[in-house]
């Protein structure tokens, strides 16, 4: 192993600047002559905008302009595009309503963008915004899934009857029906996957800067994928050719998916900066983030599992309603469909699966990918269903999983829903998790808790997920409107230090460290001699950014490919310097050696010669050492594992305390174990948040009830036990690094483990069902109903 290379627990290089408060976030940037934008948002879920009178706002101190949808329309500004076309069962395309950056005549959710006020300062813009007179004629609204598909529900879009955007299916319906016909037993479940607000620590922000001298635009924005924003905003919304548009995503304080999407404010500030001839800055306030960042999850699902007499899973049938919100956000349509349903086989040998998903419009904030994006929804459903099957069949829940897990010698494994899992060892992660969680001795802990008047429960989930988005050909055939390869450039400098330009974007993932370790391993240089550049479309090659746990599997593989080219070229140079044949050279520990001799050139010497090529043969050897590569993945990657949670419930108050969390994961080859731990911890915290406290609630009128941290409960450090994290890895077989992905497994695997633990604790009292989050009042009510009581219990 090279010092600082693959597998070493290096502390994160980037943490120095973050811990010193020297990070450079979008809001830290202030451009000369900059003006400030404040977005006026709809207080109503559904209304006609009868009139907008800006005269009073324009008269306020410092105000430069008030823009409305009419101003954008006059400049032929386009709508925000959706990146993935989903087709309904009958082959018809999804309903794709307009999505202008500022509305023209109707508002469709609380927080919808009505107008923008630009002033000399943020305070002036905000004060003036309060003086903008908008006359609304309110209309009936619908916020919840079941209400939206009920007959006579208010229509979000006239072109979407029944509020249905698409009615999609996947899988072999006939095979599933045949399997159900011969089933020994059918287990059924209906559950809600609760709606979440992403709440990255850094609220979104954007600065548009038009340079009239060069007729060139720069957008600074809180994005996970600056090239995607350049493509979407440049080509579809503002029609700016790529060479005239630079998008910079500097340090970004967390995304979790919510900063993948192209948002209205990015287009507004870019357009307004040209209108006003000044840079225009917008920074979201936290309350604004609650009503303008795309939300996550929000599914209602009914599923049936067919089992044979021995408990083998024969078939699964799933019907899901997925809330899309009022408009289609960038990846809203793929998240509940292709990112979710193909995983319904899970880590099991289920023979046939058929899934139907209805995408539904409501008068709510758009819903899109959020940490896990579709896979948490599939995993939660499946693992709740497996536990229910265990209870109904009387087969122990661990035994039932063991019976149905794909055997470790069955890889590559073709699932019934298109995926081919390349590698995994689900039994090993299951057994590791059981051992580390002291599963076998749980009943003693349950009894000890009972003696203290507490209900203790243990729950588990065995999961597989798909990341490394995605083979472009597959994505294209499924309706993706972009390729999903990635790119890297490796520039070796004359004295042997290295700069890597990557299409990935780091907003908490630690790429500056992990990617440097890949370079260190391959070239034998110290990680400190490697700089990772990301986030600036003027510098980096065209790449698709960071989401879906793809950075290492896809962007890291692109770096590995570029490094292969660097080594090949270096070998030619070294061979020239050593007057030998490249084929006779070995490259090890940062030096090229003629095999079987002590004649060698260090990597630094080779790099120097590349840039000071005094005697290079012109015909066969170019100067320089700078290579690029594009990598299009051959397949998705499939991390998997087992998560175990243990809870203790106060039966009098319903309060759930999370006592233990133990996980055993297969993330593929580990580049940096400290970062892997950190990513798992963060994902677990968010998954636990979904299971126990986070819940985005709208009332009947479409007002957001949980619109601040006073009511929306984020998990706190004190709510969490120390996590026990174990790994049992199998290498990915189809990418050069053998890596799978780690960023989302926590939020995928742990919610069902926690809920299964809660239900295990409540089972002796007769409770059989509970939806997330398991809040104290919900638990108390479930216990009370199970006891058949109505009034308050003493």
């Amino acid at each position, binding site marked *: 192993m090279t010092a600082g290379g693959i597998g070493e627990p290096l502390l994160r290089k980037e943490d120095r600047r973050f811990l010193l408060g020297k990070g450079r976030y979008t809001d830290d940037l202030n451009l000369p002559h900059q003006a400030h934008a404040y977005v006026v948002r709809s207080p109503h879920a559904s209304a006609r905008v009868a009139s907008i009178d800006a005269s009073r706002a324009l008269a306020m101190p410092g105000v430069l302009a008030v823009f409305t949808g009419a101003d954008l329309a006059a400049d032929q500004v386009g709508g925000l595009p959706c990146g993935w076309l989903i087709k309904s069962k009958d082959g018809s395309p999804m309903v794709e309503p307009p999505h202008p950056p500022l509305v023209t005549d109707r508002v469709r959710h609380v927080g919808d963008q009505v107008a923008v006020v630009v002033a000399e300062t943020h*305070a002036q813009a905000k*004060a003036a915004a*309060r003086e903008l007179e908008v006359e609304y004629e309110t209309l009936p609204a619908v916020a919840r899934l079941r209400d939206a598909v009920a007959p006579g529900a208010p229509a979000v879009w006239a072109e979407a009857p029944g509020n249905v955007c698409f009615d999609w299916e996947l899988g072999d319906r006939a095979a599933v029906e045949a399997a159900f016909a011969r089933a020994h037993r059918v287990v059924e479940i209906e559950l809600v996957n609760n709606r979440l607000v992403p709440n990255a620590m850094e609220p979104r922000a954007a600065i548009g800067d038009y340079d009239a001298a060069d007729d060139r635009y720069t957008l600074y924005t809180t994005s996970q994928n600056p090239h995607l924003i350049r493509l979407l905003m440049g080509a579809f919304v503002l029609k700016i050719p790529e060479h005239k548009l630079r998008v910079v995503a500097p340090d970004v304080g967390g995304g979790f998916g919510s900063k993948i999407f192209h948002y209205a404010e990015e287009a507004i500030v870019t357009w307004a900066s040209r209108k006003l001839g000044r840079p225009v800055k917008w920074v979201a306030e936290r*309350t604004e983030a609650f009503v303008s960042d795309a939300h996550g999850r929000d599914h209602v699902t009914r599923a049936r599992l067919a089992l044979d007499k021995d408990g083998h899973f024969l078939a699964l049938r799933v019907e899901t309603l997925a809330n899309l919100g009022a408009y289609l956000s960038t990846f809203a349509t793929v998240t509940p469909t292709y990112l979710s349903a193909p995983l319904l086989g899970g880590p099991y040998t289920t023979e046939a699966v058929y899934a139907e998903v209805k995408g539904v419009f409501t008068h709510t904030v758009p819903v899109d990918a959020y940490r896990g994006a579709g896979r948490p929804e599939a995993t939660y459903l499946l693992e709740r269903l497996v536990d229910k099957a265990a209870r109904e069949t009387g087969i122990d829940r661990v035994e039932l999983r063991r019976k149905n897990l794909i055997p470790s010698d069955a890889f590559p494994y073709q699932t019934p829903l298109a995926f081919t899992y390349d590698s995994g060892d689900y039994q090993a992660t299951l057994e590791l998790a059981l051992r580390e969680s002291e599963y076998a001795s749980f009943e003693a802990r349950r009894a000890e808790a009972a003696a203290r008047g507490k209900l203790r429960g243990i729950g588990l989930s065995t999961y597989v997920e798909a990341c490394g988005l995605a083979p472009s050909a597959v994505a294209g055939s499924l309706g993706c409107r972009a390729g999903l390869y990635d790119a890297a450039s490796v520039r070796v400098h004359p004295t042997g230090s290295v700069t890597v330009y990557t299409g990935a974007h780091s907003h908490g993932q630690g790429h500056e460290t992990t990617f440097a370790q890949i370079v260190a391993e391959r070239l034998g240089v110290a990680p400190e001699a490697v700089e990772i550049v990301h986030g600036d479309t003027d510098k980096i090659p065209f790449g698709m950014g960071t989401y879906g746990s793809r950075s290492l599997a896809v962007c890291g593989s692109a770096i590995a490919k570029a490094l292969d080219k660097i080594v090949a070229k270096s070998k030619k140079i070294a061979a020239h310097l050593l007057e030998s044949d490249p084929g006779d050279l070995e490259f090890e520990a940062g030096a090229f050696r003629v095999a079987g001799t002590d004649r060698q050139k260090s990597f630094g010497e080779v790099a120097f010669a590349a840039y000071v090529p005094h005697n290079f043969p012109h015909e066969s050897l170019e100067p320089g050492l700078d290579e690029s590569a594009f990598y299009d993945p051959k397949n998705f990657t499939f991390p998997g594992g087992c998560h175990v949670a243990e809870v203790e419930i106060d039966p*009098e*108050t319903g*309060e759930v305390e999370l006592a233990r969390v133990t996980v055993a994961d297969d993330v593929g080859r580990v580049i940096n174990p400290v970062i892997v731990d950190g990513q798992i911890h963060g994902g677990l915290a968010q998954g636990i948040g979904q299971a126990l*406290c986070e819940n985005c*609630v709208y*009332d009947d009128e479409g007002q957001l*009830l*949980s619109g601040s*941290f*006073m*009511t*929306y*409960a*984020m998990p706190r450090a004190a709510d969490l036990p120390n996590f026990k994290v174990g790994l049992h890895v199998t290498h990915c077989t189809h990418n050069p690094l053998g890596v799978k992905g780690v960023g989302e497994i926590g939020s995928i695997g742990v919610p069902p483990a926690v809920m299964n633990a809660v239900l295990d604790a409540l089972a002796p009292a007769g409770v059989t069902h509970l939806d997330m989050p398991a*809040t*104290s*009042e919900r638990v*108390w*009510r479930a216990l009370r109903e199970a006891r058949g009581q109505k*009034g*308050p*219990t*003493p």
Partner: protein
Amino acid sequence: MKNFRFHRPQSVAEAVAVMNGAEAGKYLAGGQSLLPVMKLGLAEPTDVIALDALRELNEVRVDGEALVIGALATHYQVHTSPHVNKLAPALADLAGHIGDAQVRNRGTLGGSVAHADPAADYPAALLALDAVVHTDRRALPAEAFFTGLFETALEPDELVTAVRFSLPRKSAYVKFAHRASKYAVVGVMVARLDKGFRVAVTGAGPKAFRLPELEARLAKSCGPDAFEGFYLSPGELNGDHDASAEYRAHLVGVLARRAVAAAA
């Protein structure tokens, strides 16, 4: 936030005078309630009158059979005061569960009681410990002080200067904190005073209130039988999507029983 005039009076009298000269003035103590509502535009004072120069108002002292805590004593001060910990440990405990460390280092007793948030912790302590609120001009028993949702008996210019708490023989505060805000969904303070048990509830209603029926039962017996059939009607209680009135009514019973057990 709108612009305002900022004042820093050097005496209570000057503070009140400045308030009387202001169009829409607000006293600023720790700012833990005022500043958030100003940021949200829910309060737009023309004049903010900072009280931090009034050092004499943050004293914690024992005065005969009472504990007198200055209005500007921070929650942290109350939580860590040797006097409070010795004479009314439940009050120290209560202060240690308000908000988070930042809030406790800035927020004050006087600010909290004058704000009269229905989910604040202190009102339960004031009712249970038979407290008297002292202002620049008079003294008001706690039960007359809290009049409704964010409402008190204070005149517009009146300034709380101290709170005088009776010393309990025993006391306990049991809080069920809101998962997000950490305010009390329900908080119950039980105190055994010389004149008997007092049970006060915060978080559950529009303002803190006592449970006279339970107090009467406890006068007879403070064992588990005191709670036999005890039932608080949810009728007048707060209810929202985080905690229904019915759940709050239930919690009052559970927490009261636990507080009584702790104070027995």
